[in-house]
């Protein structure tokens, strides 16, 4: 088994799985019908992409585990998503801020992954870019609408950005699997995305009349399986069916 490639794929896929689950939680709970549908559509796109990644991971693992086993039956510390995507749904400003801070990274990341020497990863990236462009357009719009909206919406969006900012730096940390895959021309060197990322983020925040947080200390750990308390609750929801009725299929 190609251990590093397997780990690398999980590192990419877990972000989308966990964010997809967060957005899926809004099904029937969105602030309006249109935003409810939009959030669940984004969730559906992410789950679709995740299936492709986990199918590939299952093939590489080659130990009889399926995409469902990988997605549903790992323990909390075996998930390697960034802390940003597991943060809970509070108000809509927070949900859109989290989405936006991930979307900008996600699109930059996929544009590089498209150049991967690994043809499967490159194909998934190519497909996903088209979908994620719509996500970023949607979340950027809401940053501007709420940031440059009423006093109340501006305050909520500013609070959300200030709170989530601490999770952004982790996106650009390289894991051991990252380093190995970058060397082989398969993985993306995420440190190279950083400048571009903050440049895009800052230009949207400025347009939204929001101020840029000044922060020196950032949270990290998700990529090593050390999570905030929120992930456990999310997983108990996500894994409920598979744990209660083992091996059930759709």
């Amino acid at each position, binding site marked *: 088994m190609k251990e590093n490639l397997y780990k690398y794929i999980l590192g990419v896929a877990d972000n989308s799985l966990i964010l997809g689950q967060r957005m899926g939680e809004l099904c029937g709970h969105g602030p309006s019908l249109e935003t409810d549908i939009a959030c669940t559509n984004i969730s559906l796109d992410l789950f*679709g*992409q995740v299936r492709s990644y986990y199918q590939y991971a299952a093939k590489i693992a080659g130990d009889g585990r399926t995409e469902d086993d990988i997605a549903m039956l790992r323990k909390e510390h075996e998930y390697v998503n960034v802390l940003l995507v597991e943060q809970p749904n509070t108000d809509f400003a927070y949900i859109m801020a989290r989405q936006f801070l991930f979307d900008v990274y996600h699109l930059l990341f996929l544009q590089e992954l498209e150049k991967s020497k690994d043809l499967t990863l490159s194909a998934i990236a190519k497909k996903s870019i088209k979908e994620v462009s719509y996500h970023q357009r949607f979340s950027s719009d809401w940053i501007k609408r709420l940031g440059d909206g009423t006093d109340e919406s501006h305050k909520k969006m500013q609070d959300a950005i200030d709170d989530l900012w601490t999770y952004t730096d982790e996106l650009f940390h390289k894991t051991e699997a990252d380093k190995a895959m970058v060397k082989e021309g398969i993985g993306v060197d995420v440190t190279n995305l950083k400048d571009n990322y903050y440049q895009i983020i800052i230009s949207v925040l400025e347009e939204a009349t929001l101020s840029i947080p000044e922060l020196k200390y950032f949270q990290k750990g998700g990529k090593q399986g050390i999570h905030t308390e929120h992930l456990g609750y999310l997983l108990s929801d996500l894994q409920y069916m598979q744990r209660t009725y083992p091996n059930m299929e759709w």
Partner: protein
Amino acid sequence: MIEHADIDTELLPILDQVSDPEIPVLTILDMGVVRYAKIVDDEVMIKLTPTYSGCPAMDVITDDVEAAFEKAGYKVNIDLVLTPAWTTDWISEEGRDALEKYGIAPPLEADADKDALLGNKKIVKCTNCGSQNTKLVSQFGSTACKALFQCEDCQEPFDYFKCLK
């Protein structure tokens, strides 16, 4: 004749029987999701591509294609492929007409689409009255591939098939 895909002519009538479960007026050939269909050693080899990664219609389409070929007496082998990624350019002319008659505005050119979705230009035509005085209600509609519009003249809400290049 379909230019973008590699399909044996004799298989076209069978493929033409399978429609998109979410947009029943479109066959899968109109949608452009059939990338390859050939008879190899007594077996029909088929390659399908999803419109969107998470498109829930894909499993149904795969089952329907399998059923259609088995009914016609063929053994069939279906593969899902991701490259080249599906684009709305592969929707046939007949497909675009069928979409419009069904009440879904067909996709515009990529640049035009961006303007339309951002509300910079009014170019999506109302499927009810034909007016171009329409507005975007939401970038995401009833399925992953659609956006929600409303006509400001006749007030009709309608779906617009998002452009994907």
